[in-house]
């Protein structure tokens, strides 16, 4: 497989700048996810790598070699799209064999058989090989599309929201299959999605894209634990992070319009007087001896966990607890907030205020 490097890519469509100075490197064998809302530039990035769009500035490199003027066909890339483009009248076997039989490759039939059988096993579709693709379910069709991409061992896989059209259960199971396949094959993969769950669960690294720019690049842990700004903080995690307008006075932190007051045990001198406090719902813990008081305003039992909406003063703070709980709406509840995981953001720029650095300086 191959590494992929984007160097300062800018792409304009008439007056719109779709990508602004985008740089990143996908390592050999890495599962790299581009995450962002609609219109962020994810698909454009993918098309530039494929050679389907040509960048206005910057370079694309495969294995440290500039390929700006290499045609899409010669880049040796395999695609998987949201819409599966299979040949409906052909069997699954022939669909899988198709890329190998193309006049460009002319693989001997014996090798075709070996590769198709292998791909089918990996994707657990061996029992479907003789079936016409028109008679498959959506999930089976997407497995065949992925199978068709893996039979020919390309340099790079590009996947554009391949799971978006599937229902929730199928999406879950294919996510697991894709991760397993990618890791055991060691294939270099760029996966584009707007779904933060897909990004967190599958990626080695995530590039968060917004308005044509990379706003953060890091491991799923980095993105979740150390969001660079409020946009990223809100983008990942379900239920979303609590973002609370807060202020500082005499070393204590006050959440506005609520009795929540945090006496943190680290220096806060670099925090401005007003800031936004970020608290993930799993860091808000109901506890009979908790420091804060509130009232249960709403309960959403999801099964594995329950979301409690805790009304504290004028603020509603979300908390997740394990299992289905016995809380009732209107119950008064005491709770604690885990201080080690607090996030601080600048109110104006929305950028992260790095508290670790504050600590190091103390």
């Amino acid at each position: 497989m191959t590494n992929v490097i984007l160097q300062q890519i800018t792409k304009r469509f008439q007056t719109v700048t779709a990508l602004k100075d985008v740089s990143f490197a996908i390592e050999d064998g890495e599962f790299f996810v581009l995450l962002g809302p609609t219109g962020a530039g994810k698909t454009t990035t993918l098309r530039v790598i494929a050679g389907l769009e040509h960048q206005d500035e910057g370079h694309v490199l495969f294995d440290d070699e500039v390929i700006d003027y290499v045609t899409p066909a010669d880049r040796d890339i395999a695609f998987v799209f949201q819409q599966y483009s299979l040949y409906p009248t052909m069997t699954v076997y022939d669909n899988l064999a198709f890329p190998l039989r193309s006049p460009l490759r002319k693989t001997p039939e014996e090798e075709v058989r070996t590769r198709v059988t292998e791909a089918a096993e990996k994707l657990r579709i061996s029992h479907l090989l003789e079936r016409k693709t028109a008679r498959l379910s959506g999930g089976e069709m997407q497995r065949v599309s992925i199978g068709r991409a893996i039979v020919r061992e390309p340099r790079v896989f590009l996947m554009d929201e391949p799971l978006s059209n599937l229902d929730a259960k199928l999406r879950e199971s294919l996510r697991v299959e894709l991760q397993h396949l990618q890791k055991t094959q060691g294939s270099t993969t760029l996966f584009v999605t707007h779904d933060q769950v897909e990004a967190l669960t599958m990626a080695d690294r995530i590039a968060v894209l917004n308005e044509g720019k990379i706003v953060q690049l890091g491991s799923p842990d980095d993105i979740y634990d150390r969001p660079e700004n409020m946009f990223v903080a809100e983008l990942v995690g379900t239920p979303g992070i609590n973002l609370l307008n807060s202020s500082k006075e005499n070393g204590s932190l006050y959440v506005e319009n609520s009795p929540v007051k945090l006496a943190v045990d680290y220096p806060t001198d670099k925090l401005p007087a007003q800031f936004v406090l970020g608290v993930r719902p799993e860091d808000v813990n109901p506890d009979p001896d908790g420091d804060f008081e509130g009232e249960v305003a709403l309960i959403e039992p999801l099964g594995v966990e329950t979301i409690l909406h805790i009304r504290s003063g004028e603020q509603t703070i979300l908390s997740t607890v394990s299992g289905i709980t016995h809380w009732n709406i209107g119950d008064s509840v005491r709770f604690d907030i885990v201080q080690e995981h607090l996030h601080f953001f600048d109110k104006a720029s929305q950028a992260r205020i790095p508290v670790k650095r504050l600590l190091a300086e103390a």
Partner: protein
Amino acid sequence: MATIERRQVEKVFGEVHAVKPMDLTINSGEFVTLLGPSGCGKTTTLRMISGLESVTGGQIYLGDRHVTWLAPSERDIAFVFQFFALYPHMSAYENIAFPLKAEGESQAAIDQRVDEVVEMLQIRHLLGMRPGKLSGGDQQRIALARALVRRPEAFLMDEPLGALDADFRERMRAEIKRLHLDQEATTVYVTHDQIEAMAMADRIVVMSDAVVQQVGTPAEVYYDPSNLFVARFIGSPGMNLVSGNYRDGAVKLTEESSYNFPAEWQTLLATGLPDSGNVIVGFRPEAAQIKSEGQLVGEVYASELYGAYTMLHVMMAGGEEIVHIRSDRLGRHDIGATVRFDLDPEMVRFFDPTTEMAIRR
């Protein structure tokens, strides 16, 4: 607000039995979701309650009124659809006021009532705007306001959040539930999204293949599914279901894994199973705990970070089944690593592999 009662209601379209005879009583003020995959009959069920679809057999009561053959407009029910059917040429205010105008209410009464719902939904700033200028979420709020303004006997909602993006759907989900708590309006809510059903409902009616599979609270359908369909459909991922065979106090799950169930299950296992001893063991991902001395063993197939926790997918040793184990945030394991685990006996369930029904204590 009224109860809704269905007695042996069924629907046949030509050769298709879309809803098989079904009894269901929805209590006054209750929030009930009809949950199931597409084609299970949930929307047809809702449409029969509304009168938009006639019944093939059975009766429907709204409170003590027999409404089976009444027209939709005579049933006093409000409907909210997935696609907000707002009038594009009218302002938000006019859209909301429309049902009251149509009923010939006085302007003062209309203004007062619109004012109440506007306050409740916090949409005052939208009143002058045309629907075309509003976001999807705000349009759905206006559609809700229009349904609320009439104070109907019951609300019927057909996937009202289906067209919204995930983030917004979560917020609207909480809003609708809060609204329901304020109004205590009898509500029937159709969805294919089990998370939505769990989060919102007092009771869930799980449907599949035109038949009700289970009626219960979120905790009942989650912890005690009545059959394999419900066990799989509820939860993300669904319940782990592993085939096994019971003999002499232990359930053999694969060639390499056996599980000795504690005493409290032994009576059930000894007496409740089919003669073959074949059984399906079900457990939720959080019922499995990774432990170095665990009885069960497998190999990590994939590992997913969800933010607050990690979900491990483990291929059982000597078998082909992948089980899902919820592990804590730092409980990561490389793909291919061997892990051992135990089950929380309180959270294990058993199913008959032939009938697919739960075997209960």
